């Protein structure tokens, strides 16, 4: 059910090609690779470095700086739960702890994220690119069990 293509260095080169060879293309390149393959493969470091004429160390440094880049494919659905202050004020921390317990050992990845811009309707999560508001334990459990986002977007 993976939305991602299996890593292939030839295909990776094709993904990089439209981005040209200027060093400021590094982030867009890495984002394009992650969108295609679900992560930034170790072999991508050399490919990107070659494309923009930087050292592999510089490219590795960029990758390792940003929280978004993954070095391995996600085990499954990614639930990004807000752990910042506005969601803390409405029980976000307890929800995050509960989510980690629920997801333990399963094929769902729970990640803390610091603000999704839904601060008036927290606790909030970002799942499959969609925002979920007024999250509670029950609907969170549904998300962990693979329930469609649309089905849990409506409290009550």
């Amino acid at each position: 059910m993976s939305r991602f293509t299996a890593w292939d260095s030839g295909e990776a080169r094709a993904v990089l090609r439209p981005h040209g060879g200027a060093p400021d293309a590094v982030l867009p390149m890495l984002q394009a690779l992650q969108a295609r393959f679900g992560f930034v493969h170790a072999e991508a470091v050399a490919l990107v470095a070659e494309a923009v004429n930087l050292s592999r160390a510089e490219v590795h440094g960029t990758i390792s700086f940003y929280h978004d880049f993954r070095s391995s494919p996600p085990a499954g659905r990614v639930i990004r739960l807000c752990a910042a202050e506005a969601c803390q004020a409405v029980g976000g921390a307890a929800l995050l702890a509960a989510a980690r317990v629920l997801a333990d050992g399963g094929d769902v990845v729970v990640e803390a994220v610091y603000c999704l811009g839904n601060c008036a309707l927290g606790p909030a999560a970002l799942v499959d690119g969609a925002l979920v508001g007024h999250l509670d334990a029950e609907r969170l459990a549904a998300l962990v069990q693979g329930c469609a986002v649309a089905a849990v977007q409506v409290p009550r």
Partner: protein
Amino acid sequence: MTLRVFIPGDAAALSVGADAVAREVAAEAARRGVLVEVIRTGSRGLLWLEPLVEMATAQGRLGFGAVRAGEVAGLFDAGFPAQGHPRAVGLVEDLGWLRQQTRLTFARVGVTDPLSLGAYRAHGGLAGLEVALGLAPAEIVSLVAASGLRGRGGAGFPAGIKWQTVLGAGDGQKYIVCNADEGDSGTFADRMLIEGDPFVLIEGMVIAGLAVGATKGFVYLRSEYPLAERVLRQALAVARDGGVLGASVLGRGPAFDIELRIGAGAYICGEETALLESLEGRRGVVRAKPPLPALAGLFGKPTVVNNVLSLAAVPWILAHGAEAYAALGVGRSRGTLAVQLGGNVRRGGLFEVPFGMTLRAAVEGIGGGTRSGRPVRAVQVGGPLGAYLPDSLLDTALEYEALAAVGGMLGHGGVVVFDDTVDMARQARFAFEFCAKESCGKCTPCRIGAVRGVEVMDRILQGVERARNLEVLADLTTLMTDASLCAMGGLTPLPVLSALRHFPEDFHRPVG
């Protein structure tokens, strides 16, 4: 007659089911043979009422708040009454929440289709750009300076001075960079504006380009806002098709185009020099200043770096005059502020008012107190680097100087409400924890200080040598304040020390 129905497509509205309601409206209308046009708008900012469904009538738009999937048939059955229906809120424009506002920047948000350039024009859009095209660059800059507009990203630096510096920096390549890396918890105004009226940001950037002689702009948008990215990408294409962007602005001006870049999950990239590093493809590590970005910014060229709301205020200023803008506000805080109410608040959302409203009026009046119904204990203003203020300081005005005077900061205008169940020592610990996670690592006070801060707070929370550890905390925060390279390390002590000053009992609780 076609029934016109407006339903927000804003991410916050979607997060509580706006799409499902929109689909149901279309399906229910089809089932009943009613001709309906569903127009997706941004959000009016009354977020506790989302999804807010509006029906066009001769009297104005009738609102139905917090409509859920499954309730739409009932609205059709009742014939969309203005009153009486449990979801009816009456004429939307008459709601107190909107009537108390002065919506300049957000005038069209929630009203128009964000991707219709025609609707944008019909509601006053491009009037500022038309004015700007008839002015010399120095005239545009002096208008912006005269308006008193200050940077909305948090630092509050006068936009006119920044623009003047870039204008005066020679004739070579220059850039306009829009900081849309809205990472502060409690803030969502940039997101709402981009999703609800992207053309006003585009127009503001074009005017900035005309003013300083830049032909290229970048928007650096955070990756946590996927919907804003989609909307802005489409809006840029529409703006190019419509001649707002391209080889000649509106067929009369110089060239200007905008490129959208997406962040990669680093809070520090909201700091302008880290943002520039990131745009150039590197680690988002803060640069030492000087040189100022205005003289040596993106790719070493003179660069205007402004927040979304600073740039989006410019079209109104050009269209209505600097005096009209400067007539609003208090002291050195001129114009309007997009106050964002979040956290444990009953009526959360965005409202735009002239600077100077008190925090109490915002939290208790507009916000209606806590969502939990418990007493308000603390309010954090200005994001994770902002101070926690107690009830006794809620009469402070929402403006730059008044907040600084009580040891806080306005930041990007986010107000996060906490009820009396909050543990302020834990919030202080979190401030360090967040700094440790998000520090770029360039300067020692921030990189090491944040980690030491978490350790010291852990000892205080565990009751280990409290008096001595409170001394270490005072020493550490002084060092971070005085010696950090940027606001990340320099302001992390603000939430910590305000929590300690106003809520000392939480730092002395018996353990267990």
